[in-house]
Every structure is written in C-alpha cells, then in structure tokens.
C-alpha cells in the first residue's frame, strides 16, 4: 500500500500544481504529507500561494480561493483515473464572475483531455452560457419533478 500511495501522491501533486496555476493564472501550490514520516499514517496538507500573496495553508485563504484550490485537487485526482462521467452539484456558488470563467475553462480542458461526459448543476448565468446543452427541472405539479429541454439561445436571452 505504501508504494502505491506514494506514487499516487507524486502524480496528483504534479497535476494539482498545473491546475492551480491555470485556475489562478499564476501563483503556485503544492501538496504535502504532514504529521508522520509514514505515508500511510500522514495527513494531507495543501500549501498555496495565490499570485501576489504570501504562501499559506488552504485554511487561511478566502472562501472563493479555497473553493478554487479544492477544485484543482479534486480534478487532479479525477485526471489520475478519469471515469466516463463526472457530476457536479453547484460547486460554482462561492465564485466571482472571473473565477467562474476559469472554472469553465478547466471543464473545457478536461473535456479535451478525456472522453468524460459532464453533468453540471448550477444557478450561475455565466456557467449556463458555457454549457453545450441545458435541461430544466420544474415542479409544475407541486412535489412532482419534470425534466424539460431548454433552448440554449433562450439562455442567451436571459443575460442580454
């Protein structure tokens, strides 16, 4: 187990660093095994340095910066063994407009790197316009869910 974990750590750490710098458009970050010299016992710490700031652990970042960093880690693990489908439920909620665009850029990057199909639940109008297609869920009858197709051009109308 120790050998496998160390190999996984090295690979995920490398991808995590690339994704972090892409998401923050600069800065750097890295994973560290802490609290024990034995990888099986150690904990995982995340050291980050957004552009223009000092290095800190992830817990001292802002809410949006933490979300972006966590996404870089989750996607790094995902890319180590991509599954045919990936589902995300309102992960973009804490992000500002600029970071929403970067989150969508990473989704496009993942689509190019893998054959994965993505399902993205969101309330954010910018994320909506970056989708290839949209479904709406409604409860015309109280308590009963129905799926309806949503025309993407109509979504464009929503924001213009």
């Amino acid at each position, binding site marked *: 187990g120790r050998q496998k974990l160390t190999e996984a750590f090295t690979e995920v750490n490398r991808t995590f660093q690339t994704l972090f710098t892409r998401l923050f458009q600069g800065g750097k970050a890295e994973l560290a095994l802490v609290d024990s010299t034995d990888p099986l016992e150690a904990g995982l710490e995340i050291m980050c340095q957004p552009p223009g700031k000092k290095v800190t652990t992830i817990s001292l970042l802002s809410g949006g910066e933490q979300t972006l960093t*966590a996404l870089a880690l989750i996607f790094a*693990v995902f890319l180590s063994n*991509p599954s045919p489908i990936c589902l995300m*439920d309102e992960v973009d909620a804490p992000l500002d407009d600029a970071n929403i665009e970067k989150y969508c850029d990473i989704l*496009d990057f993942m689509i190019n790197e893998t054959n994965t*199909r993505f399902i993205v639940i969101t309330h954010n109008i910018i994320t909506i316009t970056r989708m*290839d297609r949209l479904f*709406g869920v409604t409860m015309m009858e109280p308590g009963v869910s129905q799926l309806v197709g949503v025309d993407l051009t109509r979504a464009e109308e929503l924001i213009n």
Partner: protein
Amino acid sequence: MDITKLRLLGFKSFVDSTEVEILPGLTGIVGPNGCGKSNIIDAFQWLMGESRPSSMRASGMEDVIFAGVEGRSPRNFAEVTLEIDNSEQKAASEFNRHKEIEITRKITREIGSSYRLNGKEVRARDVQTLFADFSSGSNSSSLIKQGQIAELLNMKPKDRKKILEEAA
C-alpha cells in the same frame, strides 16, 4: 464505456418515468430551489451501489421511493436505469462481451433492492465491480455533491488524505 442515458421511475420526486439523455461535452441542469436537481445526482449514486441511507439524504433506504404529495399517491417501488454504450469494449472483463449494457436497480417497499444487468438479475458486488472506475463513494472525484467541497475544506489533514486513496 460511454454513459448515454439515465432513466428514473418513482425515485424521490421523479414519480413519472423521466429520461435524462447524456451526450458528450457539458450538460447543464438548471431550475428553482427544491425542484429536484440534486435528486438526479442521488439517482446516479444509488444506481452505482450506494448502501448508506445517510448519503442519500434519507433516514432509511425506502425514503428514495416517491412518498406521495397532494393529488399523487405514494409509490410502492423506485427504479433507476443506466444505459451504457460499450462498443469500444473497455468495460471490466466479465462484462466486456456486451456491446450495450443496461443496469437497473429497483427497490420495493418491505422487499428491498435488486439489480439487473441486461435483464438478468445480478448481485450488488457485480455492479460495484463494473463501476469500480467510477468511484461514487463519498470522497469521489467524479461525483461532487452539494456542500461536499465545504466538507472537504473543513476536514483535518488525516481525513483529507482519503481523497488520494482513489488515485492509488
């Protein structure tokens, strides 16, 4: 393997048969609060073999069966089906002879859950083997539930390391 369709019947708020077509690229799902978006994610996780009611936001597993509302009576069973296109034959060995794979999980009140693969009954373990790559557990990188990132951020370093185990 390509996932091409998800079908829900009597699962949570989706009492009527509902088909979600899954095409390549990015498929967005939108709608007001409480309309049933996260229930679709729950349906995926449940189909892949989830056995803990707490990760279904339920107190008992039968809570995933449509419980009834004004004007609609409660259902007796819930069923979720996933269609998989395996023409490139990349599935785990014992499933590779199938070009099309259709997996169904059904739960009936007081009887429990059963799984079917292309119409034939199989065990939960077989389904979990097929989806081994999907890793749909609570720390999975391919299924990020609502509020899960906040949970990951609040974890101590020792618990956070569990996310690496998927990659190992």
